């Protein structure tokens, strides 16, 4: 157990270094964009005096590295500063939106992960049957279509033709949980369709890989039924690659939802990021990107820890 804690500690430290590097890259990428924030805010109608006054008000008259280190100094103490455009705290700008994104990701994950793994087990069990092929073709089709296209197809049938679910996932205060689930069902379903294929196929591949091993052969020879062979004997050894793929897809659920948010008008963090980039709102861009980066780092760490915990050989190294 001590080894795992040490590993987690090391990886978290490394993660912080990665975040620092990412923040530098993001800052200078935003600097490289043509035009500037004052121009973006005031638009076509800006005069030189307007621009100068607004730049001063936003602190843009200082050199780039001074602004970066000013931001970094506060960020170390978890103060991500204020939005340059609206002057609001970054945490208030993206806090609620991040919660919305997390909710949608969890909603999709709660459906997608069990469905993918159960499907994966079933297609491994019934490999090369019609069921296996149909499941593969359907999931591969859904992963190969762009999210917005899947979204529009779902809207066309579930909202416009059959009227079962609302076409837009706008949230309002004081909504009941049931209504919330109903409103966000179509965006969640879109995400499910996008991530299921990857996880299902990895489950299938990992299990089938093991089916040729001698101990599986042994289990079969002693008369264990096929489903039990897979669930009791093969699956425990297949967890490591499956967990990796699940972690990767969970990260995608959080970072890759921009298109889904736009199609379903869902107030998540992706929309905030797009707005912030177009306005060169550096602190907000920075905070959004760091959240995305941290999500990837943490989920990857979780995947590694998970893989170790499910593998006795890694848990008790000689």
């Amino acid at each position, binding site marked *: 157990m001590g080894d795992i804690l040490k590993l987690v500690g090391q990886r978290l430290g490394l993660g912080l270094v990665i975040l620092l590097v990412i923040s530098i890259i993001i800052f200078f990428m935003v600097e490289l964009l043509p035009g500037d924030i004052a121009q973006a805010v*005031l*638009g076509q109608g800006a005069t030189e005096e307007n621009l100068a*006054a607004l730049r001063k008000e936003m602190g843009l008259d200082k050199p780039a590295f001074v602004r970066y280190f000013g931001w970094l100094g506060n960020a170390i103490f978890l103060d991500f500063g204020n939005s340059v455009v609206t002057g609001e705290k970054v945490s208030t700008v993206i806090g609620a939106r991040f919660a919305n994104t997390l909710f949608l990701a969890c909603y999709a994950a709660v459906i997608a992960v069990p469905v993918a793994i159960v499907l994966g087990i079933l297609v491994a069990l019934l490999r090369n049957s019609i069921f296996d092929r149909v499941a593969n073709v359907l999931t591969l089709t859904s992963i190969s279509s762009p999210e917005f296209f899947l979204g529009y197809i779902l809207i066309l049938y579930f909202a416009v033709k059959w009227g079962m679910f609302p076409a*837009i996932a706008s949230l309002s205060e004081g909504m009941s949980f049931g209504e919330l689930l109903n409103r966000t069902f179509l965006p969640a379903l879109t995400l499910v369709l996008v991530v299921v294929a990857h996880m299902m196929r990895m489950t299938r591949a990992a299990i089938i890989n093991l089916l040729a091993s001698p101990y599986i052969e042994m289990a079969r020879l002693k008369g264990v039924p096929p489903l039990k062979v897979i669930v009791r004997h093969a699956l425990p050894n297949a967890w490591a690659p499956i967990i990796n793929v699940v972690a990767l897809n969970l990260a995608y659920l959080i970072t890759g939802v921009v298109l889904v948010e736009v199609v379903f008008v869902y107030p998540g963090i992706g929309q905030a990021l797009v707005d*912030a980039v177009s306005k060169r709102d550096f602190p907000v861009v920075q905070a959004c990107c760091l959240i995305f980066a941290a999500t990837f780092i943490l989920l990857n760490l979780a995947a590694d820890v998970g893989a170790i915990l499910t593998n006795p050989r890694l848990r008790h190294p000689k």
Partner: protein
Amino acid sequence: MVKDQMMLDRLAAAAKDGSISRRSFMNYSMAAGMTATAATGLWGTSAKAAPQRGGKFRIAQHDGNTSDSHDPGTYLSYAMICLAHTHRAYLTMINTDQTLGGDVATEWSATPDAKEWTFVLNPNATFHSGAKVTAADVLASMNHHRGEDSGSAATALLASVQEIVDNGDHSVTFKLDSPNADLPWIMPDYHLPICPANADGTLNWQSADGCGPYKLVEHEFGVGSRLVRHDEWHGEGAYFDEVEYIIINDPNARQTSLVTGDVDAVTLLENKTLGLLGRDPNIEIDNVPSASAIVMPMHSNVGPFDNNDVRMAMKLAIDREELIEKISFGAASLGNDFHHSPAMPYFPADIPQRTYDPEKAKWHLKQAGVDSVSVNLSTAESITTGAVDLAVLYSAQAKKAGIDINVVREPNDGYWSDVWLTKPFCVVSWGARPTPDVMYTLAYKDDAAWNESYWQHERFNEILLQAKAELDDAKRAEMYAEMGMISRDEGSSVIPYFPNFVYGRRKNVRHTGQLAASWQLDGARGASRWWFEG
């Protein structure tokens, strides 16, 4: 004509008492010489036209951003413009018949030299906080945009204002350094709502308090807002109990939400799907000529555009009708190379329309002493829908006149800082301006910062200044007609068309049939002017 008018009056009466169906009404009115749109509008006004109170009006609104702000000086997005007209109020407003009406101000008058304007405030105007609107609030609201340290985008509009005085009798006087007969027309500019003043004379915009028809109860930038009726609203209308704006930036999602009935009205429909949407029996589309414009300025101080014959050739080598049909799917009004839209006051309707004439264009090129010209036309997709296609189609049309237009696609970012005013020939989209004077002063006056074509014309500038000081409407109209003629024939801008405002609503949402042309959604006031049919 008179006979047609009598017929229409009878039809309107029949519609009102319900003795005629919508279909026959449309048939008869079109027989009497009305266009389909006008007939639909008349049916709307006549049939059961009495507005009814009640209901929650949900609007799918485009162009809302997380980075928007309640600061009127930095209003930029259409979402904020629409919201501002719902929870805040202005000194004056554009009526549905495009005339100027009172809002917070009930009447206004000028001294004969048009250098001092006095606005009398409505004694009933009340902020949502309960406080009455005072002259001090008006002063703070205007001063917010004035002075050198103001970061407001409306500074230029009020540049000629020297001083604003509180007269102590619930009225304010604007003192100008030069005559301006149009000052009351500038007051509906979306940057100039009346907000409460702080004790030190600065503006309290942060509270989002306003004196408009609806009070903001829930609001998140880039997501939406919920408003309830302000019972002390000083104006007419405000029929809905509640208004909800839902920000939907994706055009497809906006249209779908209207089709499924998730919302009652949408701003900005895509022209290319209008035909399909129009077939839905539950949806009405409003297609309103606007004062916004697509302009292609040519820098008249550089070759080859320094020769008026070349400029004439450029203007004759464009087939506006084809552009309107193919680029904006019919939802636009013809341009005539002077920046004065039919939706603006004083429109000179008798100036002959310029048509596509490659032969005449060639003749002009010959006058200029050349057989052909080759120019670069800069454009970017973000200027307007189809801005690149527009340039490509123009280029193909101009080939027949021996003009070689090379279309240069510029990056969307930084277009206004790096291309506009810098590249000698580019595509520009202009938002609606209230009067020809504002438009000409902004972009055609010899010393204007945004004289985008660097055009200098002595006579034009002379009349422009005269017209500013002229309080007699008939004389002003004559002056604008002459200015229109000059810029049409000697100006340095090709103006292909004025895009229409195209928006939609569910059938049960009614309006008077007349729509203000200043903004989307009935001059951004649909929320307080429209109603649900019972």
